[in-house]
């Protein structure tokens, strides 16, 4: 059997990780991006995305992975994935224009037998709108997780495939490619696949909303959510990988986009989505946990307080600050001096009128009354509470993600607060 040749159009985080994953599975891969210099930079090993293990994955598969800016290089591909970023605005609305442009431009370059697969997330009805009887078009659900993208692309739980007709067999090349991953393949109609992706995200939001709601109750009644969590994970109806870690609301943009899509679909159809409105309200409420605590411990007592904010990205291992709780906190702290540190994000003066960026976490804490660890970067685990206490002028430490050892902090004389426990 000849192995199908796989193309990827759009060297985004999703496109690049997926292309490298396909090469790792032994396929010859053409990785196309029309952006000036993008393909050339990737060929030199220069990545604009931050993803653990990705550079090694690309390097190891270099012989099978051809980066190109030439559309015609996709001509001999059997299956071409289209994976540009679909940007969202502040209301969670998707801008599908870049995706449509890329689909239009590759259409003429592909052979008649080629299968086109949309890998970017699209709202329900989009794929049906692009489908034509004379071209093989599919929509494949992506479940990229920033920071764990390599592992997930090499070992997917399943493939969810949106089809014009789910009863018809998949084209051989596409079927062979998917089979290589050794996981279940679930063909379904386009609309189901598009809504499956949204359904997955709604389940994640629901779990994390339960965690956030119960964590606050724990804080108020003297329970500890960290003690409760393992008992939920051992419950088969909930599961070991459930999203149960409490956080500062929903961030990153993807979950917000899907909630916005659910609201739009429901407005048009009259469905009841009151539950999702409650998730959003709870998310907004929990996002302000650091402000409420800082107000109580420092801001209401010291008008000249300086605050250190460690971490600006919306989560670790990414430079994305989309809906980041850290930025929300900065906006709320405008009368106070703020010192920030993030290993991947450069602070922007637009975020705060009195902002200083420090070269390290400890340097940011020099002389401050309070420290808020707003992103769970791994390196923050190495902060020595005694060194922190020596650097700070005050002693308030907000550590929502439990990066530091609570007992060690208290032993060092720090007032330590985290999510889910008093």
């Amino acid at each position, binding site marked *: 059997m000849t192995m199908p040749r796989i193309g990827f159009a759009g060297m985004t985080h999703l496109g690049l990780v997926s292309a490298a994953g396909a090469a790792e599975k032994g396929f010859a891969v053409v990785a196309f991006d029309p952006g000036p210099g993008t393909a050339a930079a990737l060929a030199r090993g220069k990545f604009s995305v931050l993803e653990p293990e990705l550079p090694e994955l690309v390097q190891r598969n270099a012989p099978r992975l051809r980066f190109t800016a030439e559309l015609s290089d996709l001509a001999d591909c059997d299956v071409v994935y289209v994976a540009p970023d679909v940007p969202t605005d502040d209301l969670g609305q998707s801008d599908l224009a870049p995706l449509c442009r890329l689909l239009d431009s590759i259409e003429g370059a592909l052979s008649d037998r080629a299968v086109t697969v949309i890998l970017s997330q699209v709202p329900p009805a989009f794929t049906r709108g692009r489908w034509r009887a004379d071209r093989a078009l599919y929509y494949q659900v992506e479940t990229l997780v920033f920071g764990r993208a390599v592992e997930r692309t090499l070992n997917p739980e399943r493939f969810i495939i949106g089809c014009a007709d789910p009863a018809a067999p998949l084209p051989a090349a596409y079927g062979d490619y998917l089979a290589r991953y050794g996981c279940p393949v679930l063909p379904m109609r386009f609309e189901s696949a598009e809504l499956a992706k949204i359904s997955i995200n709604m389940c994640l939001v629901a779990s994390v909303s339960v965690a956030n709601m119960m964590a606050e109750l724990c804080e108020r009644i003297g329970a500890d959510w960290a003690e409760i969590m393992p008992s939920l994970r051992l419950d088969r109806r909930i599961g070991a990988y459930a999203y149960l870690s409490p956080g500062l609301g929903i961030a990153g943009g993807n979950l917000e986009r899907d909630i916005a899509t659910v609201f739009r679909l429901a407005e048009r159809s009259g469905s009841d989505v009151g539950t999702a409105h409650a998730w959003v309200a709870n998310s907004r*409420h929990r996002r302000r946990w650091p*402000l*409420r605590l800082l107000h109580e411990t420092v801001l209401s007592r010291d008008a000249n307080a300086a605050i250190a904010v460690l971490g600006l990205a919306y989560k670790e291992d990414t430079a994305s600050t989309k809906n980041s709780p850290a930025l929300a906190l900065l906006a709320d702290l405008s009368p106070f001096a703020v010192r920030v540190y993030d290993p991947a994000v450069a602070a922007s003066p637009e975020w705060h009128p009195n902002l200083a960026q420090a070269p390290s976490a400890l340097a940011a804490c020099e002389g401050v009354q309070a420290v808020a660890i707003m992103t769970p970067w791994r390196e923050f685990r190495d902060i020595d509470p005694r060194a922190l206490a020596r650097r700070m002028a005050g002693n308030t430490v907000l550590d929502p993600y439990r990066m530091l050892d609570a007992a060690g902090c208290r032993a060092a004389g720090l007032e330590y607060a985290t999510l889910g426990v008093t």
Partner: protein
Amino acid sequence: MVMLVNPTSKNTARTVVLGARGFIGGALTRRLEAEGASVLALGSGDIDLAAPEATERLVARLKPGDTVVFCACLTPDRGRDLATMMRNLAMGRNVAEAMVTAAVDYIVYLSSDAVYADDTARIASDTKAEPGTLYGAMHLAREVMLKASVKAPLGILRATLVYGTADTHNSYGPNRFRRMAEKDGKITLSGGGEEMRDHITISDLVEIVLRMLRQKTRGTLLGATGRSASFAEVAQLVATQFTPRAEIVNLPRQNPITHRHFDVTSTLAAFPEIAFTTLGVGIARVHAELLERR
């Protein structure tokens, strides 16, 4: 949703206080005057805001660039009936019409947490108003009147239970408990006094208004501290001010227990340096001030 029109603090040219002889309007007026601010204090003796000629008379007193704080209101102790509501609505209409004619710069409307349903246990700035009383419906109607007709930026402050030395309203809470203790040596509570409520001192409420005036805060804020205590705790705190300590008597409960908590995060986001007086300190302060006055 709170928006700052003018994020840099500065005092406005002149503040006109409507309802300046009342508990809240009076405290605000005294505080503004103590700061040396220019104030026009108007009480019902100056202009009867419910009278048909009120709009004209108010317009005659206003200057372009004025800031107006609208505190004038007949509170439930002055009547819970339709006639009281209609007088309050007439005031609302007249003031709104005067605001349209006069080129005022900014308006603060002092509203009430009565705009929320009585059984709402947790109130945040985005909680939907759903008044269950004429008084609450009146405040909501006045808010809507001002929003619909006035072009100047509008800040609405929905105040919860306010207490302080000059309070005359005698509603169930710290002020009435103190009067009971002083008069009879005992405080009577409905049931065990289990209901949780948020009590804000008049000086803290005035602090919020002052910040709104400085920053021209638009939108709806909550006049609350974010910390609720049971009436039993309030009664204990009041009782301990007296020597001998006042007795607390529990009478059979007439109404089911309801609680009320406020999430004041949007106030903290707008004014992160604001500090609220704790209930113990506030009650002790009122007691000391009243003793001093004797």
